[in-house]
């Protein structure tokens, strides 16, 4: 029951709609996945720094503040299903 609620919340956060029929197989997949995670959880990590990037070298690069590579407006809107007033038209969702 807890798993179902958790998965529903995750689906909501990711704005995915999951039907009740899909839920049992999703729970099975989720459990398998969590079993794998458990193996990692069991590793002793006391005193080990989290590793985010597998590189030893330092990065010093910052891009200079110059303007280049502006896209043509036709290219910007090429993938839009609908365009109005040179803008991408989407269903209205008032969120923030």
């Amino acid at each position: 029951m807890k798993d179902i609620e958790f998965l529903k919340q995750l689906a909501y956060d990711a704005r995915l709609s999951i039907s009740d029929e899909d839920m049992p197989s999703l729970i099975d997949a989720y459990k398998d996945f969590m079993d794998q995670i458990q193996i990692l959880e069991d590793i002793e990590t006391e005193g080990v720094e989290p590793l985010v990037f597998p590189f030893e070298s330092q990065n010093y690069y910052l891009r200079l503040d110059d303007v280049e590579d502006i896209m043509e407006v036709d290219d910007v809107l090429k993938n839009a299903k609908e365009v109005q007033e040179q803008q991408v038209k989407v269903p209205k969702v008032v969120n923030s």
Partner: protein
Amino acid sequence: MKFETVIGIEVHCELKTKSKMFSSAPVSFGKKPNTQVHAIDLAMPGTLPSVNQKAVEMAIRVCHALHMDIQDLLSFDRKNYFYADLPKGYQITQHYHPIGSHGYIEIDVNQENMRIDIERLHLEEDTAKLTHLSDESLIDYNRAGIPLIEIVSKPQIKNSLQACAYLEALRYLFIYTDVSDAVMAQGSMRCDINISLKPETSQQYGVKVEIKNLNSLSNVQKAIDYEIQRQTALLLDGKPILQQTRRFDEKTQTTVAMRNKETTADYRYYPEPNILPIKLDSKWIQQIKDKLPLLPKQRKDIYINQYQLSYNDARILIDHKELSDFYNQTVQICPHYQLVCHWLIGDVLSYLNKSHQSIHAILHVEDFAKLMHFVADKTLSTKQAKQVLELMMTKHKDPVSVIEEYHFQQINDDHILMKVIDEILDYQPDLIKEYSQGKTKIVGFLVGQVMQKTNGQANPQKTNQLLMKELEKRKQ
């Protein structure tokens, strides 16, 4: 029961870089929709973000002005949420290691200093702009990716007056550090207010309400005052306060609920894998710090304590950065602190307001300083100096040429003045008679005649003295 208000403020400020935070598309306003866009801003497959050096520099400037610790290993994180204004499905921000932390700002609340601690300052990118129509929304990606800094205060603010003073102090700081125009009405500076009430005796914070959509200081004040009233009424009625996001509604002048607040965990933050942490050069950071101009608070202290300007005069100068810069340069060559200030915030400022021009377009520091010298040593009378100044500003000329061309120089020479006085008195013996009979008011009239004859060039005080002497001599 008495309640105490606890307010924390999040401020977003758009940085005036040339290009965006992670792409080389331009940062510009008022352009046609979707014409200022790079493939990175649209999250096109295969594109990678690259960090704008100028935006980092600007963030460091503000961090230093806010007395913050600066994180020299720059790293970014993803804030995940799904909404049409966010093409990638996440915003690149700095969640775990903000570039600045543990700072403070001194604010001025009704002429009293107050310190507000600042928790963090982080760099992030702006979202696309949505225009909501009746059934659908339109997306303009010009704004997507514009660099932002977010500044989070500690919950130390207690009322709307302090909140407005804090925001104003930050706005000036952005302008003086030259990172943004910081215009709330245009959205280049935005703020969210977190507000909760707790019983005065309680140590525990109450339930927090966030207010968005505040586009002016006056709305910030109204929203906070309304919210204090609303929450107090609920608490006194024993009703719960919901953790919500509310917005200020201009029409009703109240706050209205938008949604119940998601908790921070919902954003599923994690380190941005597309940007390797960047080590910032400590020498570069130091150079940025060293180049920081004098900030509003420092200027105010100098103006009031060293230059003996009044609080109000100092405020007016600081309210106009250009004018304050111009003042600082002028008093370096002409240290008549109060005189220079009065002329700048008087005649010069009113001309600037009328003509909507920048001070540098109409006056040179050296020329203005010269004019102030002429006023200080009485080469020019106040009236003459005003006329000279106006001609300097309208004709773009230096004071010496104006004085020569328009014969403005004050006449201080006794011989020349006496010649004029004699001429006037010789032709009006009746006046000398009147003076003899005790009508001393006649002196003012005669000074006026001398001024008229000399086209206003005679030194009025000197004329007055010489006239009195001559009248006494000629007294019958």
